């Protein structure tokens, strides 16, 4: 497993390393930067949703908190951008910790509603706290990042910065997933009561992973702020939360690599739609994207609840198994034996009984 990881990771490093030499236009590089930023969001949500099984419809809020914390600290208070990024991450992590306790008293759909509410609250605060955030007219003058006199002024430099961090998050996440904590998270997803009865402090792990995903989103937000150098609330609204959800779902809920794939697919699709929909439907704005994402989400959740990539793999596996089973039963029938037939318990079953 570990060995396999290393191979995939090396391949990913190489591919991402050469991409800017293949797609050299500034448009392409900027799209790839956004993919990297989205990937950080998706990796975090993947840990929370795919592994721990806790839905979040408010992930854009953490992204917004990170972006605005960085933006305000650097533009209004002239704090060093790297320090600001760290402070933003601490602040966002703290917010996650504080809301985590009451939030995780909720389960399933109620939790989804709770996180949705959190996302809306943060969005409205970004709009209304005009003294701090500049409100709807935005926050200007967020500086570019630089380190030891090396400024990330060119897109290509920024591309490598963003992806270096995205890959760092990927590696940290893979390590978490393959550790005792990752197993605990998946056990919560599998059966919360059984997890508790095996000594897993389910609440603690849910909050911990919420903090991790919030910090990832915060750093992504800071990078976004320093890249576009202008912040206004709309990019941090409900639509982004849904987009991140779609990224994770497309990527296959419990695959950290899949989250990167999902981020790429969703961002590219979003870019394509933005270009083509107004051409096909005169008068249609960019908001038609959300319709398409809604449909994708519905179709994937109905037909492949484990996500698009692992769903496809499962279909292939099931098809193979069925084929093997058909062969087996045919052989069994030929031999007039009844081995391999699953025994159905008679009378009442323990599963139905409570």
């Amino acid at each position, binding site marked *: 497993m570990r060995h396999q990881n290393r191979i995939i990771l090396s391949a990913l490093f190489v591919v991402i390393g050469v991409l800017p030499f293949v797609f050299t236009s500034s448009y392409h590089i900027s799209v790839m930067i956004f993919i990297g930023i989205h990937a950080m969001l998706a990796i975090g949500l993947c840990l929370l949703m795919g592994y721990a099984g806790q839905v979040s419809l408010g992930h854009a809020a953490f992204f917004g908190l990170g972006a605005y914390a960085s933006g305000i600290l650097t533009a209004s208070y002239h704090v060093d951008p790297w320090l600001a990024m760290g402070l933003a991450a601490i602040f966002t992590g703290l917010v996650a910790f504080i809301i985590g306790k009451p939030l995780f008293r909720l389960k399933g759909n109620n939790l989804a509603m709770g996180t949705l509410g959190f996302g809306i609250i943060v969005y409205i605060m970004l709009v209304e706290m005009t003294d701090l955030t500049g409100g709807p007219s935005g926050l200007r003058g967020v500086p570019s990042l630089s380190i030891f006199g090396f400024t990330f002024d060119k897109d290509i430099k920024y591309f490598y910065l963003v992806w270096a961090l995205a890959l760092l998050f990927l590696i940290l996440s893979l390590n978490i997933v393959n550790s005792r904590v990752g197993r605990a998270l998946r056990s919560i997803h599998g059966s919360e009561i059984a*997890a508790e009865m095996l000594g897993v402090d389910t609440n603690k792990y849910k909050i911990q992973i919420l903090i991790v995903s919030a910090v990832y989103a915060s750093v992504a937000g800071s990078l976004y702020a320093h890249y576009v150098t202008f912040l206004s609330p709309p990019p941090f609204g409900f639509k982004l939360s849904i987009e991140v959800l779609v990224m994770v779902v497309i990527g296959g809920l419990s695959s950290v690599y899949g989250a990167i794939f999902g981020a790429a697919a969703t961002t590219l699709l979003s870019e394509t739609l933005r270009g083509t929909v107004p051409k096909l439907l005169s008068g249609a704005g960019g908001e038609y994207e959300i319709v398409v994402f809604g449909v994708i989400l519905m179709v994937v959740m109905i037909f492949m609840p484990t996500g698009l990539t692992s769903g496809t793999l499962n279909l292939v596996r099931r098809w193979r198994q069925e084929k093997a089973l058909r062969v087996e039963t045919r052989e069994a029938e030929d031999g007039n034996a009844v081995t391999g037939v699953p*025994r159905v318990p008679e009378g009442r079953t323990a599963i139905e009984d409570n």
Partner: protein
Amino acid sequence: MAVSTTDMDRETEAGSALLDARSLRKDFGGIVAVDSFSFSVRPGQIVAIIGPNGAGKTTVFNLVTGVHPLTAGEIHFGGQRIDALKPYQIAEKGISRTFQNLQIFGNMTVVENVMVGRHSRSKVGILSGALSLPSSRSEEKRIYYAAMEMLDMVGLVSRAKQPASALPFGSQRLLELARALANEPKLLLLDEPAAGLASQETRNLERLIYRIRDGGVSILLVEHDMELVMGIADWVFVLDYGKLIAAGTPRDIQANEKVIAAYLGDETD
């Protein structure tokens, strides 16, 4: 097979009980599910709680394991009061359980299920896990081998790498057992372990329960299979409508008129 038919209550009062539940009461809304029920399990004992459907047996398990808070009463385990603890803390103290309606982690492999059982016997946290420190990796190995040992005990080693959801029903029961044992419990709660098992599987289960007991684990059992209960239990408590109606050795219980009436139910009225 029965260890002793002498007065058990006197001995538990002397403090020899591993689990000591005193006057448990649980109300759900207006319904009293368990009513002033006292029982105890001594080290090395196999104790059964039986009773008709809805007698409150599973509720007793949920009270002992902290899933439901008590309405009244006290639970002591190994001399410590545990009734205010959370389920994961009670698991850490050394109580494990299996479930009447299986609670397998279907999203994990067979061996991973058992590895979760090692959770409270290991300690790598999120930071050392994220950094994949050497301590994390060596602990992972120990967890894995301990889990494989448990699988060996229940005979599921060959299935270790398969998804747990792919196991047949009987094997899933064994998997829950292995997972519970991985926690190194002093007391194991088995909630209808024989439900849905074929008679051969039940006989294997019986042997397994003896082996677990011989390994120093006390067992509290809720079971409908009377042949199994009467065969292996050292002491039996009978619940009806949440109240204790009889307690004694299997032989006493089988001859008890109240118990017979409770099981036959309405037909005697």
